[in-house]
C-alpha cells in the first residue's frame, strides 16, 4: 500500500473569523503614516507598486496572511514552484495600456515591434502543448470538446463560438466595446442587452442551444473563471469570458503568460520594490474616519498585540465580505455578493499512469469530472520533464448555497479530500493512487467573487466603489465583479490615482 503524505492548508480563516466576535488586546503601539494600504492581494500590491513608483507618499501595506498574493499565492517544494490559486494572465488587450506598461517595467514585455506592439518574453508565454482534454477515454488536444462528438454537437459549438465572435466585435455608437477588460473601459450601455439579469443557462435555452457537450464545456469555463456554474452565473459574465479578450496581438495566437508559480510571479514582481513596507500577519479589525485622519486598529497575530495606525488616507483593498466587519456602517446586500469556495491541491507523483492520446500539457482537463482538471507546474521549466511531477488540481465548490459549500470545505478531513481528488483524477489516470507521493490541499474559503445575475449591473456594486470622506479609497476585483488579475490591477492602480488626484481637496 502506497502511503501518501497529506497536508491541509489554506488562507488563515481561523484568524479571519475572529472578526465576527472581536476580542482583541488593548492597543500597545501607535504608528503614523501618510497612506495605509489594507490587504496584500493583487489590488493591494498594485496600489503599493503604483504609489511607490509615483513616489512622494510614504506608506505601509498590511496583510492578514503570512504571505501576500491573495488569490495569486504560490508555493514551492524541492521539485518545483507551483500556484495555489490563479495561474495565468491572458495577453492584455491593446487598449489596456497601463497593464502593458507594467509588464514592460517588470520584464515580461521585452520590447516593441515596428508597429509598436509589445514583444512578450517567450519564456514567460505558455509552452506548447498548452491544453488537452480527456473525453471518452481519450486525451484530445485543445479544450473545446471534439473527440467523439456528433455533427449536431459540433454545429452548435461552432454556432456558439461564432456568436461569441460577434459579441467580441460589438461596439456602441461611440465606438466603445460592449465587452472589454477592464470592465470600466467598456461601454456604459453594456447592460442594456439584459444579459446580466439572466443566468447563462437561461440564455442558452433562450437562444436554442441544447447540446450537452456545449453545456458541459461552458459549465467548465464558467466554474473555472467564477467558481459557479452556468446555472448560477450571469450570462453577461460568461459571454464576457469569451468576448472581452480581443487577441489583438495576432502572432501570439492563444498564448497566455504563465510561470511555474502561476500568478505568484506577478504578485512577487509587484511587491518586490516595497517589500520592507509590508506588515504580514496583521489583521485590521476596525476603521474609524476622523475629521483629519483615519484610525485603523490592527491585531499583530505574530506578537499577539494590538496596534493603532493613524493614516491620512487609506486604500482599502479587502474583499467586501471582510469590509462588512471593518466598516459596519456600510450597506449590506449578502444576496448579491457571493464568493465560491475553492481547493487547490498540489499533488506530487512519480509518474502518470499510461493514458491514450495527446501528451501531458500545461492545462489538463477531464471532461465531466468534479474538479477543474490540473495544471502541470514544471511544464513552464526550460529543463527536461522529469519525475517527480508536480501538478495543481483545482476544484470549485459550487451550488445554490455557497455558505453550505464553505462549511463542507472546512468540515471534510484530509483523508476525505484525498479520496475525492484521487477518484476524480482516476477518471483519466487509472491507478494514479499508487504513484502519488504527497497531496497538499490549500483551501480558499472565499475563492473569488461569483457574478450572479444582477450584481454587475447593480447600483449596490457602484456604491461600494465610492470613497468615504475622500479618505478611504476602495480597490478589489470583487468591486469589478469579475475576479481576474486585470481587474484587480486596474482597481489598485485607479484607487492610487484617485487618491493622489484628490489629495488637496
Amino acid at each position, binding site marked *: 500500500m502506497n502511503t501518501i503524505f497529506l497536508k491541509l492548508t489554506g488562507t488563515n480563516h481561523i484568524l479571519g473569523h475572529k472578526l465576527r466576535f472581536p476580542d482583541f488586546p488593548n492597543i500597545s503601539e501607535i504608528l503614523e503614516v501618510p497612506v495605509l494600504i489594507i490587504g496584500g492581494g493583487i489590488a493591494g500590491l498594485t496600489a503599493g507598486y503604483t504609489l511607490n513608483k509615483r513616489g512622494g507618499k510614504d506608506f505601509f501595506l498590511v496583510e492578514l496572511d503570512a504571505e501576500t498574493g491573495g488569490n495569486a499565492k504560490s508555493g514551492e517544494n524541492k521539485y518545483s514552484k507551483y500556484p495555489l490559486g490563479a495561474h495565468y494572465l491572458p495577453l492584455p488587450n491593446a487598449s489596456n495600456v497601463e497593464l502593458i506598461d507594467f509588464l514592460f517595467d517588470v520584464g515580461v514585455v521585452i520590447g516593441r515591434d515596428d508597429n509598436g506592439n509589445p514583444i512578450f518574453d*517567450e*519564456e514567460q*508565454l*505558455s*509552452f*506548447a*502543448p*498548452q491544453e488537452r482534454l480527456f473525453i471518452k477515454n481519450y486525451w484530445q488536444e485543445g479544450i473545446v470538446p471534439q473527440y467523439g462528438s456528433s455533427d449536431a454537437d459540433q454545429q452548435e459549438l461552432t454556432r456558439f463560438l461564432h456568436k461569441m465572435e460577434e459579441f467580441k466585435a460589438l461596439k456602441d455608437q461611440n465606438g466603445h466595446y460592449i465587452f472589454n477588460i477592464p470592465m470600466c473601459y467598456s461601454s456604459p450601455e453594456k447592460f442594456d442587452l439584459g444579459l446580466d439579469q439572466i443566468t447563462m443557462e437561461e440564455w442558452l435555452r433562450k437562444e436554442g442551444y441544447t447540446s450537452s457537450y456545449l453545456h458541459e464545456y461552458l459549465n467548465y469555463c464558467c466554474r473555472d473563471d467564477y467558481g459557479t456554474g452556468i446555472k448560477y452565473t450571469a450570462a453577461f459574465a460568461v459571454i464576457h469570458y469569451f468576448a472581452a479578450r480581443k487577441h489583438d496581438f495576432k502572432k*501570439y495566437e492563444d*498564448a497566455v503568460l504563465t510561470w511555474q508559480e502561476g500568478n505568484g510571479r506577478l504578485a512577487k514582481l509587484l511587491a518586490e520594490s516595497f517589500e520592507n513596507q509590508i506588515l504580514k500577519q496583521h489583521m485590521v479589525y476596525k476603521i474609524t474616519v476622523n475629521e483629519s485622519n483615519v484610525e485603523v486598529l490592527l491585531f499583530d497575530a505574530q506578537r499577539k498585540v494590538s496596534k493603532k495606525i493613524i493614516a491620512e488616507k487609506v486604500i482599502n483593498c479587502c474583499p467586501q465580505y471582510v469590509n462588512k466587519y471593518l466598516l459596519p456602517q456600510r450597506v449590506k446586500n449578502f444576496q448579491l455578493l457571493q464568493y465560491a469556495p475553492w481547493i487547490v491541491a498540489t499533488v506530487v507523483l512519480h509518474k502518470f499512469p499510461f493514458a491514450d492520446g495527446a*501528451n*501531458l500539457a500545461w492545462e489538463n482537463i477531464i471532461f465531466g469530472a468534479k474538479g477543474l482538471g490540473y495544471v502541470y507546474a514544471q511544464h513552464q*521549466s*526550460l*529543463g*527536461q*520533464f*522529469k*519525475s517527480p511531477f508536480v501538478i495543481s488540481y483545482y476544484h470549485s465548490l459550487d451550488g445554490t448555497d455557497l455558505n453550505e459549500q464553505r462549511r463542507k470545505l472546512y468540515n471534510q478531513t484530509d483523508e476525505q479530500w484525498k479520496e475525492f481528488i484521487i477518484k476524480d483524477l482516476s477518471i483519466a489516470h487509472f491507478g494514479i493512487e499508487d504513484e502519488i507521493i504527497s497531496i497538499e490541499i490549500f483551501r480558499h474559503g472565499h475563492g473569488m467573487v461569483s457574478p450572479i445575475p444582477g450584481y454587475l449591473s447593480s447600483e449596490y456594486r457602484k456604491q461600494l466603489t465610492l470613497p468615504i470622506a475622500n479618505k478611504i479609497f476602495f480597490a478589489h476585483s470583487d468591486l469589478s465583479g469579475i475576479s481576474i488579475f486585470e481587474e484587480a490591477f486596474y482597481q489598485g492602480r485607479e484607487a492610487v490615482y484617485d487618491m493622489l488626484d484628490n489629495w488637496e481637496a
Partner: protein
Amino acid sequence: MDKKKNLPIFLLISVFIIATCGLIYELVAGALASYLLGDSVKQFSFIIGTYLFAMGVGSFFAKFIVKNLLDRFIDIELLIGIIGGTSSVILFLLFQQVEHFQLILYLFVFLTGCLSGMEIPLLMNILKDRVNFRDLVSNVFTFDYIGALIASVLFPILLIPKLGVMGTSLFFGIINVTVGIFLSFYLSKQLKNPIILKIKSLVCFIILIGLFFYSNELLKYSENQLYSTNVIYKHSTPYQRIVLTEAKGEYQLFLNNNLQFNTKDEYRYHETLVHPAMSIAKSPKKVLVLGGGDGLAVREILKYSSVEKVVLVDLDEGMTKLFQTNELLRKHNANALNNARVEVINMDAFLWVKEAKDKFDVMIIDFPDPSNYSLGKLYTNNFYKSLYPLMEPQCIVSVQTTSPYFAPKSYWCIYETIASVFPNNLAYHTYVPSFGEWGFNLFSPDMRVNFNRVNQRVPNLKYYNYNLQKMTDFPADMKAVDVEINRLDNQILVRYFDEEWSKI
C-alpha cells in the same frame, strides 16, 4: 526399491546432468566474453582453454578429499550450481562498474572449471567399490560425453533464443542444485550431515529461483527480440533507458530505443559533426559540448592541440559515468571523458546555458532527436538565442539536426529556426550507414565567417576530408518548404518530427 542397488544408476544420471551443466557454463562464459569484449574466436578459445585447464586442476585436488565423499560431492554440486548459475548475472552487473572486468570473468571460469573437474574423480571414488571398475570408467565417460553433446546442441538452438544468457546459466544452476537436493534427500541415510546438506541445498535452490525471476526483470527476453542482437548492458536512469548491444563484434548504443551510435560507423557521424566546426575556427581553445555523453565527439575534439578546455554538459550522470568507467566503452572514446582537459558537468543543458558565464570558441550540440516536447525545447529559437552570451565573437557552432531524408520538414525547420537567430548558417549532410542520410547545421554569430575556409587540419581522419562544400548539396527528396520556426509556445518541430518518423 533397494537404494544401495540403485545408487550407481542415480549417480550416473548425475554424471549426465553434471556434464551437461558443466559444458553449459563453459558456453555461457564464452558467449558472455564475446558479447562483452568482442573478438569471439579469441574469447571462445581462451575460455575453453581456461575451463579445461581448470578442470585439470580440479581433478588433481579431488584426490585430497578422502572423507565423507558423498557429502562433499553434494557440496560441490551446490557450489557449482550457485557459482555457475549466478556467474552470468554477476558478470553482467559488474560489466558496467568494474575496471578489470576480464580478470573477474576468468576467475569465474576458472572456479566453475575447477569444481566441475572435481566431480568425476570424486564420483568414481564413490562408486569404485560398488561397481565393476571396467564398467564404471566406461559408463561414466559415456554419460559425460552424451551430456556434452546435448548441451552443445541445445545451447545455440534452444537455450539462448528462449532463455537468454542469464536465464540459461541460472536455469542450469537450478538443475545442478536440484541434483544436490535429490541426492541429499534420497541418500539421507548414507550422509554424515544430512540435515545441514538439506538446508544448504534448499537455500541454494531458493536463491537461484529468485534470481531467475529477477533476471527476467534485468534482461527481458522481449528486449533481446527487439534489438535482434545481444543486449549486453542495460540501465534505466531517471532520464532514459540505456541499452548497449553487440552484433558481429560491433557495439550499438540505444537511448530510449533509439540508436545513438554503432561502433562500426560512428566515426562518420562524429567526424562530420566535429571537424567542420573545429577546422573553420581559428585555433579554438575552449570548446563546449552539449549532450554527447558518450564522449565520442570529445574524442574528435581532443585531436586538435590548440584545445585547452572542453566542457561537456550532459543531463545524465548514468551515461557519462558509463563512458568514463567501462573498459570497452572507454576504448571506443579513447578515454576522452577522463582526459585532464575535459570537464564533465551533469546538468540540464538548457538550464546550464542560462546560468553559465564562460565563453567558447566552438560549440558542438549533440542532443537526441526532437521526439518529444521535452527535447523539442532544445531546438527552439529561444534555446539558440540563449547560446549567444556564451559565444566568443567568432564562435562556430555545429548541431546534429536529424535526417533530411527521413524527416525533411523537421530538418529544415531546425535550419530556419537557427537562421532566424543566426542568419550566417549552413546546412550539410552525409551518409552514415547505420542511420542513413544524416543532417547537420553550422552557424556563427559573425556574419563574415566563411564556412568553406579551413584554418587547421588534423591528420588520419577516417572519413572527413575537409571538403565541406561537397556535403552542402541537397537533392530534391531532401528538401522542404514552408516550414515554421520552432518556438517554445508552438513546438512545431515535435509535430513535424512525429508526423515524418511515424511514416517510416
